[in-house]
């Protein structure tokens, strides 16, 4: 008797748990798992005739045999890594300043300053950069007014413009985890290293960076993934030579009606970017769970 009641009690507990996590399961399966399964299925077929498809690896082999696609991916990955590194380089002093050098209201103000660009959509932000950088834009006008150049300069439509846009867009996602980890760093550790004879550089290298490593890595992962998956910034700021892998996917889906190739590219992007993140974690000797918690 008691065994039966015990069992039913345990069952009702299980049911409760099931009810509790069902929204999560639904969310995961409906919006993440199913679309990906669908994506895999579509990527593994090939159009043989109108409305007729057959199983094929050709969409995947196309990626490796057509140098254009492979090169576009490599370029995207390298640019993303570069953008991540630049973002880190710029965000680190900013984060250090916010976390360690200022207090109270001014700190909040600085944080808000980092946040403000995100109150408008990415499109508007990118157009903002276009207005600044274009040949008839504000920077060009300013340089002419200062007399540093004697004719309009085009600063838009090149890789530097892409990089500027990407770094700008990613800033917050690097600053926040860095500030969080740096705030946890005991000031006396910095002072101790300094007191023991460390130069500024050594103190940062020996004490601050090791402590901030989880923040650095998680910031880098987020920024890298965001950059790799960015579409608007590289296409709008990059101009005629901008090749971005997501643009390739978009083109396959929307302008070529080639969902098969687009899906394959999507899966490849997922796999390859996961691999890069994994490699990054290995190199920095961080574990994913530690970084993300």
């Amino acid at each position: 008797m008691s065994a039966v009641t015990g069992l039913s009690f345990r069952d009702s507990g299980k049911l409760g748990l099931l009810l509790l996590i069902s929204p999560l399961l639904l969310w995961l399966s409906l919006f993440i798992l199913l679309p990906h399964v669908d994506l895999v299925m579509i990527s593994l077929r090939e159009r043989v005739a109108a409305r007729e498809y057959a199983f094929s690896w050709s969409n995947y082999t196309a990626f490796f045999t057509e140098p254009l696609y492979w090169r576009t991916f490599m370029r995207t990955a390298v640019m993303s890594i570069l953008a991540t590194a630049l973002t880190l380089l710029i965000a680190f002093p900013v984060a250090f300043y916010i976390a360690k050098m200022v207090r109270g209201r001014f700190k909040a103000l600085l944080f808000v300053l980092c946040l403000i660009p995100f109150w408008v959509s990415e499109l508007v932000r990118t157009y903002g950069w276009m207005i600044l950088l274009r040949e008839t834009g504000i920077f060009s006008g300013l340089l002419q007014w200062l007399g540093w150049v004697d004719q309009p300069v085009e600063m838009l439509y090149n890789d530097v413009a892409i990089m500027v846009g990407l770094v700008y867009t990613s800033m917050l996602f690097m600053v926040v985890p860095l500030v969080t980890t740096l705030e946890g760093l005991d000031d006396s550790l910095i002072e101790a290293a300094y007191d023991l004879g460390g130069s500024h550089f050594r103190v940062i290298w020996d004490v601050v960076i090791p402590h901030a490593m989880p923040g650095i890595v998680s910031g880098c992962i987020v920024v890298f993934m965001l950059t790799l998956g960015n579409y608007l910034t590289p296409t709008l700021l990059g101009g005629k030579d901008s090749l971005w892998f997501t643009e390739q996917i978009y083109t396959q889906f929307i302008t070529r009606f080639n969902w098969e190739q687009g899906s394959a590219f999507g899966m490849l992007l997922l796999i390859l970017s996961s691999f890069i993140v994994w490699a990054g974690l290995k190199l920095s000797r961080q574990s994913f769970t530690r970084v993300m918690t």
Partner: protein
Amino acid sequence: MQAQSSLKEMDLECRGVTKTFGDFTAVEDISFAIPRGSFFSILGPSGCGKTTLLRMLAGFQSPDSGDILIKGRSVLNTPPNRRPVNMVFQHLALFPNMTVAENVAYGLKRRNVDKHEIKTRVADMLSRVGLPDAGGKQVSQLSGGQKQRIAIARCLVLNPDVLLLDEPLGALDLKLREQMKVELKQLQEKFAATFIYITHDQSEALVMSDQVAVMNHGRFEQVGTPQALYYEPATRFVAGFVGESNRWQASISARDERGFRLQTEAGLSMQADREIGDKSASQNDWGVGKSLELFLRPESISVAPGHQALGTENAYQGHVESVLFDGARSQLLVRIEGALDLLNVSLPQTAEFRSIRKGDSVSVGWSSAQVQCYEV
């Protein structure tokens, strides 16, 4: 301070050091000198400016005025990483991402000492602090006391002219703290290094130090040996801060060549000698009616069971209000007949007091030379 020691033997000297933060004066016109190899403590309540003073010595803050000299040379323009001074932090600040040996070796590496030499010096230092096998351990594997020793070893391995310690025992539990006090003193003697130790715990300061400076509101109230501070507190603050005392607010009811007749607000009348206590004011100027604060150490009070003549200038009858038994530090709370407040009396460790109980009547008394009087 010690007028006989010449400047050259001084490891550290401060001259008129002042530091203000806005309207707040944290350190005000402090001057002192510390001879080589001594253990010097700065004792004071929190907020008295002792941490600011220490940080100025280390170089993390610079004084608004005054000068700091180490071995006779001003270090005001020397940044912390080049001052021949090292600091043990309140929470020790051992680098968690390094092993124990790496922690100890850190300062040597920054001085570009040869690798082999670093190895031998670190091993030597670890064995000198009694942790010869801890080198490969992670900091988190050490106990509180071991961390303490590593934090000190990390500094001492650099042979600093002065070692600064910022209440490093504060985080330890009581028992370990008692033990570490002794250990610290022994370490200091073993290395013959100059230690400057700041604390708010008078017991730490008294036990370990050769010299103690009592600090209050940014100033040194008194600098002296622990004995001097304890037995001859120069100011009312020192008398109240160092050691335990019975305290009374009183006024002078009569005076003669030997001393004063005092009447406390709580209704006690007693005799006190001149020139005991306050060194800042001329006691000759004190007239009848002058308000004073009186301090009397519990161990200066003679006590006897029942009605006995104690032969002291001040003698009273009272009864035991309670017995606070604490081994060697046991005390009696005695209510003197006709007085409002309780008297704190050290319990003599003799057989006749073993069976003393609440309500027993006792005779108490103290010599007029034991009453420390201070201007209010």
